[in-house]
């Protein structure tokens, strides 16, 4: 799964730490998602979407491998 978290974070001018606080997870989780090492749960994906004011599918996208 690909995601645009890093891009959205830049648009909203948030550090990983700040985004992590807003979403209520650890900084490692944001970092792992951005590095495509971790596929978040649906709940977490929805929360990230809400912070950026976007639909989940505008941030997360299926990969060829999925």
């Amino acid at each position, binding site marked *: 799964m690909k995601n645009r978290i*890093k891009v959205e974070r*830049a648009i909203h001018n948030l*550090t*990983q730490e700040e985004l992590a606080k807003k979403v*209520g*997870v*650890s*900084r*490692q*989780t944001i*970092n*792992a*998602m*951005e*590095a495509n090492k*971790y596929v*978040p*749960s649906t709940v*977490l994906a929805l929360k990230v979407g809400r912070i950026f004011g976007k639909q989940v599918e505008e941030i997360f996208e299926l990969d060829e491998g999925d």
Partner: protein
Amino acid sequence: MSHSLLLPHQYKKIGWWLFVPSLLLGIFVTTNLYELPELNAHMFSLIPEFSQDKFARTIWFIDTNLTHTIVGVLFIISALMVGFSKEQNEDEYIARLRLSSLLWAVLFNYILLLLSFIFVYGFGFFTVMLYNMFTVLLLFIFRFRYLLYRSKTAFADEK
């Protein structure tokens, strides 16, 4: 992974304070590097011993040296506290690291045990069994700490 089985985060600190000394004591006890004082006590034994005399009777209470018992109990309790207390920022990703560390530890432990079964015999195997009682917890703790450390230091691409 259900978080309901994990202890609150505060137990982690207490766990570490007990874990380090009991690990050292455990090494002393099993290697005889340093002789610990004997603590003899009269204890209830769940599996009875049979006495040698004619009127064979079961003995439920035995006289034993409690040093090994105390060290073993301390080690297990403290290792459980260290391994199964919540992290300060326990979330779904940390839970996944925890679970994958546990899988890794069980697998690695049984590979070691399998090799020991094949290559270690006699009294040496007794030593293997002795350590094997504690290695799952040890391997799990070390693997989990390592994964946490690695994920904390992976911030090269912050911006």
